[in-house]
């Protein structure tokens, strides 16, 4: 019965969305306050209905109602409760429902918190939001209905893929989707502005908090995903330039560019057309990403043909959304003239450089991701575009962006002084040169690229710190004066400082962990020891253990340094029954210098075991750096001028990440 109610709620939501997508738009056009006023309640009702549908599916999962096909295919009664709940979005239909839920929540947030928006504009925003909703609701109802019944119901479900039975599943997809869908707000605001034919500083001020919130969520979602891959896949890799990862990375790159270009619109009334275009592109990439993953086209062009209904629907929807918004843009954008002029070397100029490089980098990732598909479809030729391609193309585009990122905040609006800006960063320059020399001495036999890599990270961090010190006039005015400046300086400036320094930490983490990783792959007998760098690792033995729905072998390894024991690593090799599968649970010990990573594999039959150990210096800087970037985003979000109308201001992400960390660190 609950499943039918959920299904019914979805059908109702579709009808409400249809009303919300049309009447408020007509009302705003004709100036009819009654129809304009329809937008808010419609958004709220639509949200309630989708929440009801989502709750119905969750109920089916929690109660293990195997008469629902989706539950029977993806769940199992013996699964721990966390994975019954998270399993709701661990499959195609459920994850689309989660997408819809978040879309509706954002719509409702505009309805509730959008009091500062003019009513006709708000009506248009909500109508555009509802159009996206119509597309997704129709997709779910007609091609991917999660409420389909199964008769007769099986005694038990087929179970969830064991690799997904991890706290990562509970947190990674929701945050990723909060990011993806959050950019729908920027899209709806952009389309509504195009319909009205007006983009101004006020518009930028409305769009910015939504974009910022979406960016924070997406950053966190991607970081969690990378971290999940890091500890779950058992090879210590965390980014593979896989098409699915790229699908989430492209909106991030475009969103980061958007975040910066809205600053120019807000402060200087310039780059308006470009910003609107970027808002459209960012969400289009989110949609493309969702659908690339969902349609199966990435696995093979032929997967697209195996389920033509879904594929054709997806294609039609993408063409409607992207084509429609770009057509509107082409018609309306030329009428919107940019205001403030600026010299090439200026704060605006720096932000244009940021946009130039980020957009090109984003286009490169798009090219590399889609190229094999098109080549296969057009010529039948099969190629792989793997990490070496992206390292060779994406890297060189990002390096100048990262170098410039440190200088940008030091430049003045309108006309800046590059030499003066660099001179004001003299301590950062000194720190960078010192870092270069220190790395050169410490790692003279290491990979050469790592040396400038570390220096780049140091430059980004040091320049962020020095910029903040410059802003406070630290040590140049009395401490009291600096403290007063600390209290008064806008939080968005602090957001920049944290986010930019965080990016520098990520760079250092990436460079150090890939350049100076040590690995040992070895067959070990009980009591045997091996040396890895300064560490001595002793295999104490392996013991069988039982989990809730798996049996496992746990290896015990004692790690010592200079004779003193510093850690006991207990990696597991798990055997799940439903579905039958083997997974590795790496044991990770995070110290100040980095991670020790241990994996136990198969027994060789003569009492020894396959083992893998990695020493990954400074890899935790990647995760800390990402959290710092998110923190910077949140600080900027709490800026006074955003406080009205910034509903996504909450500390959930950071907390959730900590919970995930403690759960995974078990």
């Amino acid at each position: 019965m609950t499943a039918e109610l959920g299904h019914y709620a979805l059908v109702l939501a579709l009808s409400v969305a249809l009303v919300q997508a049309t009447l408020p738009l007509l009302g705003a056009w004709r100036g009819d306050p009654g129809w304009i006023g329809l937008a808010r309640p419609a958004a709220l009702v639509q949200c309630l209905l989708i929440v009801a549908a989502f709750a119905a599916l969750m109920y089916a999962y929690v109660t293990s109602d195997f008469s629902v096909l989706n539950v029977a295919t993806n769940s199992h009664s013996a699964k721990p409760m966390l994975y019954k709940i998270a399993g709701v979005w661990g499959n195609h239909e459920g994850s689309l429902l989660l997408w819809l839920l978040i879309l509706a929540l954002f719509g409702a947030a505009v309805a509730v918190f959008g009091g500062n928006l003019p009513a006709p504009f708000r009506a248009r925003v909500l109508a555009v939001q509802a159009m996206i909703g119509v597309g997704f609701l129709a997709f779910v109802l007609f091609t991917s209905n999660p409420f389909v019944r199964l008769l007769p119901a099986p005694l038990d479900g087929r179970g969830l893929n064991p690799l997904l039975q991890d706290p990562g599943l509970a947190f990674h997809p929701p945050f990723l989707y909060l990011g993806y869908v959050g950019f729908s707000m920027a899209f709806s605001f952009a389309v509504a502005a195009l319909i009205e034919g007006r983009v101004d500083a006020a518009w930028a001020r409305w769009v910015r908090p939504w974009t910022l919130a979406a960016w924070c969520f997406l950053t966190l979602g991607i970081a969690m995903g990378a971290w999940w891959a890091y500890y779950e896949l058992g090879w210590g890799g965390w980014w593979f330039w896989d098409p699915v990862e790229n699908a989430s990375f492209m909106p991030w790159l475009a969103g980061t560019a958007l975040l910066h270009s809205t600053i120019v619109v807000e402060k200087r009334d310039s780059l308006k057309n470009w910003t609107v275009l970027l808002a459209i592109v960012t969400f289009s990439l989110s949609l493309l990403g969702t659908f690339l993953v969902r349609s199966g086209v990435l696995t093979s062009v032929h997967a697209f043909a195996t389920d033509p209904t879904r594929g054709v629907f997806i294609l039609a929807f993408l063409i409607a959304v992207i084509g429609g918004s770009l057509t509107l843009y082409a018609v309306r954008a030329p009428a919107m003239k940019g205001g403030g002029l600026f010299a090439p070397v200026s704060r605006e100029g720096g932000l244009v450089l940021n946009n130039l490089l980020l957009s090109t980098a984003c286009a490169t990732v798009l090219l590399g991701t889609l190229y094999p598909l098109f080549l296969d479809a057009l010529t039948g030729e099969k190629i792989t575009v793997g990490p070496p391609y992206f390292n060779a193309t994406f890297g060189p585009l990002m390096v100048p962006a990262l170098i410039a990122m440190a200088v940008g905040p030091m430049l003045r609006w309108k006309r800046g002084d590059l030499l003066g800006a660099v001179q004001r960063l003299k301590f950062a320059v000194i720190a960078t040169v010192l870092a270069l020399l220190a790395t050169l001495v410490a790692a003279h036999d290491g990979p050469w690229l790592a040396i400038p890599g570390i220096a780049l990270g140091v430059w980004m961090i040091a320049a962020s710190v020095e910029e903040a010190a410059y802003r406070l006039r630290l040590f140049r005015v009395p401490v009291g004066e600096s403290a007063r400046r600390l209290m008064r300086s806008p939080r968005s400036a602090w957001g920049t400082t944290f986010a930019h320094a965080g990016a520098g930490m990520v760079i250092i983490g990436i460079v150090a962990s890939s350049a100076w990783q040590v690995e040992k792959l070895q067959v070990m007998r009980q009591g045997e020891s091996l040396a890895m760098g300064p560490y001595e690792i002793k295999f104490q033995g392996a013991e069988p253990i039982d989990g809730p729905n798996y049996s496992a072998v746990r290896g015990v390894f004692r790690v010592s340094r200079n004779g003193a024991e510093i850690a006991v690593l207990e990696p597991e090799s798990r055997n799940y029954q439903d579905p039958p599968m083997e997974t590795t649970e790496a044991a990770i010990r995070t110290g100040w210098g980095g991670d020790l990573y241990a994996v136990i594999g198969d027994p060789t039959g003569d009492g020894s075991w396959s083992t893998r150990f990695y020493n990954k210096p400074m890899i935790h800087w990647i995760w800390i750096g990402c959290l710092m970037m998110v923190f910077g985003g949140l600080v900027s979000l709490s800026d006074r001028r955003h406080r009205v109308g910034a509903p996504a201001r909450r500390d959930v992400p950071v907390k959730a990440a900590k919970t995930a960390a403690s759960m995974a660190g078990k």
Partner: protein
Amino acid sequence: MLMVVLRRLVLAICLMGLAAPAWSIAVDTPLDDPVLEARAHAIHKQLRCLVCQNQSIEDSNATLARDLRMLVRERITAGDSDDAAIRFIVVRYGDWVLLRPPVKSGTVLLWFGPALLLILAIIWLVISYRRRRPPLVASTAPLSADEQARLKALLGDGGPT
């Protein structure tokens, strides 16, 4: 990486039959010569695990990846150069096995697309900047006698009193 994890798995299961565990978390027997072994690792990183998505055979648990790793070691021990060992595999599995796509007629756009895009974007930027900018920075030539006189008049006649 939910979908990455999921897809790698679905693929592996599809390709290897559901009942048998697709992974073998085992350690290869390394070559005795550490120099050869290091070369083998460098080659492993360039080759794609055929049953995974964009994973190199260096980072894969799949049995097939393991077989390929051993094959590379065999070729190197037999005296093949790095290129020859890679060619040996490419001849059998096609360009698809290379994580770095070769530069050829079909991939010209792939390899030179980013640079082309950057150049086009810069040209577009310069043109739109030039077009938008009115001659704001006028001549820096000194004022003519006429202008001097007008300036003087505007500033209140006689200069500093």
